[in-house]
């Protein structure tokens, strides 16, 4: 189809890896970036993507999504998730292992990769489990997982409760150069909790989860990373205390990286008023000061990357009492819009800094290809319009699920073309 390559013409090329931010053309051929420069002539037979007035960047990379295959294909599959990702501007996502069966062996890793290959949309990098069955008892075979294609290990969904197991995982993971990603939650403090412990939980009569439940594990993981020299990656940070701990740890040279989700820099626990189950997630939405701290953390680099923690759930599952509803929201198709609206337009990040957090740095910290438009880099490119205003209508999403608190919200910024491996994976039909 694209035998003669793709020319992405006339866009504002923003590539933080090379410090580039200027109007230029990008020429892709044979699955690689061939050249980036001004007024590259159109090679014969090349497909032209008109990027005038838009931003051209290395494809976005989401380090933390939940694709429900194998096991709950009615909620999402690798294919539908990969399509949703492409529609959101992502050329790659990392899939968490809490599937059914759990991704704790090469069979499941291979299956997920094969499904992604077959779909031919965004790349999907499996993340393997830390422990067999994510039971928190016995270490999974990291070597086998990495050999089959896993890029990291995590028991996300759940914390690694045993400090001994976490230590061992961090040490063992060094052999393969992969990070251990932890869902930071102290279970005896969070048990039974359904939202942030604060004024709103008191008003609503719901059991709360104190910020300390996250911070205790953040502190522990930092200390273990320091002890072992391993790389710990802290999932979906939500509290100002966590941000403070990470900042100090980085200043001391500890190998810790951290991620934050759009809902944690956009919403607060007030969103739970009226018992809206689309505001129920883990970790929960926190206070105004926490939201501010997350934004600050993204600005000064304490928080390295933005991820979605895309968590599809069935409408029926969310249509119940707050206590009983499952945690999580989808996010692949709103992430870029929320980031531009809440962070770029408010001056917290420049476009270049945003691309760094959503593409360049994710690639670097997980050792993934992409995140750059240097010559020879994979042809993973996103073209997006940072100024287009649109309304979130989940019924139009490619994801199989609809659980989002942002229905009806007006956002700025949306992907128009996503190219993966030199093929157009997504192109938005112009209204």
């Amino acid at each position, binding site marked *: 189809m694209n035998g003669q390559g793709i020319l992405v013409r006339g866009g504002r090329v923003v590539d933080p890896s090379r410090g580039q931010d200027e109007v230029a053309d990008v020429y892709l051929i044979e699955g690689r970036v061939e050249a980036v420069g001004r007024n590259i002539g159109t090679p014969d037979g090349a497909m032209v993507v008109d990027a005038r007035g838009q931003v051209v960047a290395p494809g976005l990379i989401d380090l933390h999504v939940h694709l429900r295959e194998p096991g709950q294909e009615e909620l999402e599959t690798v294919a539908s998730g990969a399509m949703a990702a492409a529609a959101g501007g992502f050329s790659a996502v990392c899939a968490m292992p809490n599937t059914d069966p759990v991704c704790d062996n090469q069979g499941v890793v291979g299956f997920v990769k094969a499904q992604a290959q077959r779909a031919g949309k965004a790349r999907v990098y499996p993340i393997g489990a830390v422990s067999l069955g994510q039971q928190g008892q016995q270490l999974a075979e990291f070597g086998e997982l990495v050999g089959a294609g896993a890029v990291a290990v995590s028991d996300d969904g759940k914390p690694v409760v045993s400090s001994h197991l976490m230590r061992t995982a961090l040490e063992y993971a060094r052999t393969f150069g992969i990070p251990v990603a932890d869902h930071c939650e102290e279970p005896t403090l969070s048990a039974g909790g359904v939202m942030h412990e604060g004024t709103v*939980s*008191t*008003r609503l009569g719901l059991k709360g989860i104190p910020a300390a439940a996250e911070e205790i594990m953040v502190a522990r993981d930092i200390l273990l990373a320091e002890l072992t020299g391993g790389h710990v990656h802290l999932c979906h940070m939500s509290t100002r205390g966590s941000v403070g701990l990470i900042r100090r740890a980085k200043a001391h040279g500890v190998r810790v990286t951290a991620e934050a989700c759009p809902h944690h820099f956009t919403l607060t626990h007030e969103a739970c008023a009226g018992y809206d189950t689309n505001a129920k997630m883990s970790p929960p939405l926190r206070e105004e000061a926490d939201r501010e701290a997350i934004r600050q953390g993204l600005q000064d680099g304490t928080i390295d990357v933005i991820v979605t923690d895309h968590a599809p759930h069935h409408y029926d599952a969310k249509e119940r009492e707050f206590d009983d509803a499952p945690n999580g929201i989808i996010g692949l198709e709103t992430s870029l819009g929320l980031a531009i609206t809440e962070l770029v337009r408010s001056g917290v990040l420049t476009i270049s800094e945003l691309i760094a957090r959503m593409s360049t740095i994710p690639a670097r910290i997980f050792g993934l290809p992409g995140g750059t438009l240097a010559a020879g880099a994979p042809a993973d490119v996103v073209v997006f319009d940072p100024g287009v205003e649109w309304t979130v209508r989940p019924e139009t999403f490619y994801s199989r699920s609809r659980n989002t608190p942002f229905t009806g919200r007006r956002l700025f910024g949306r992907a128009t073309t996503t190219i993966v491996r030199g093929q157009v994976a997504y192109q938005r039909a112009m209204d």
Partner: protein
Amino acid sequence: MVAALAKDLTGLEYLSAEQIELILDTAEPFKEVSERQIKKVPALRGKTIVNLFFEASTRTRISFEFAEKRLSADTVNVAASGSSVSKGETLVDTARNLEAMRIDMVVIRHGASGAAQFLGQRIRSNVINAGDGKHEHPTQGLLDMLTLRDRFGRLDGLKVAICGDVLHSRVARSNIWGLTKLGAQVGVCGPPTLLPRNVHELGVTVLPRIEDAIQWADALNVLRLQLERMEAGFIPSLREYNRVFGVTNERLNRAPKDLVIMHPGPMNRGVEIDSDVADGAHSVILPQVTNGVAVRMAVLYLLAGGRPESAQAAGKGEER
């Protein structure tokens, strides 16, 4: 014009002071109905009311049942199983089934906070919250206020101390909302493990010890120590709770004035309250029960009003 109520009564947080006063004022004539030989008026004749109780409760259910029957309504009691996740129908399906049977009103008690609101948003019938999780128990709050108003003649400026497991108590929350809206001062007293960390943001005074509450208050509302709700470890033992926080005659004798003693029931005698206090001269626990029926009749009467669309009626108020 009178401050009309919305379709559902889900909590006192959502009512204005005028609306609360309307309910309390309307409860007065209903007290009289319960004193008659024939304890029945035809006001809700032909209305169908379902008492949908997902949690066992004898006293609240019976109180509502009497209120409904004394208004000549037809009542059905449904004792449903626990949460949506456990066996049985989901709350959504239950709601749809009730609507299909053309029920006029539902009185719901459920273990999940927000359940009454959840139901009210999905069915056209009036929904009355008889206790949802730890959120609110509005009719209990109302009857507590009516009882205090009877005793003191007013609520404005009254000092009421709520003593006990405030953290898990929907009765406490409803009392806090209702009393503060009507100008009373509310205090909360209990071990820190049983008080919400930011309870002061609701406009209440924190009284660290029961002795402080007794010195400060005009009335004590003593909460049941909720054994069934308490996850282990909030207090070391019942014995210690009684010794440190129990409302005893010995402590009350040191009060600067005669305190009115209230309790939503059922009581754990010898734990949060001693028998001689519960049965003593200053206890209004039994009047609370009497007022409970009247308040519930008032709520049912006010909510069952004709729909605004059918008010060709608006001017017909004085029709003879």
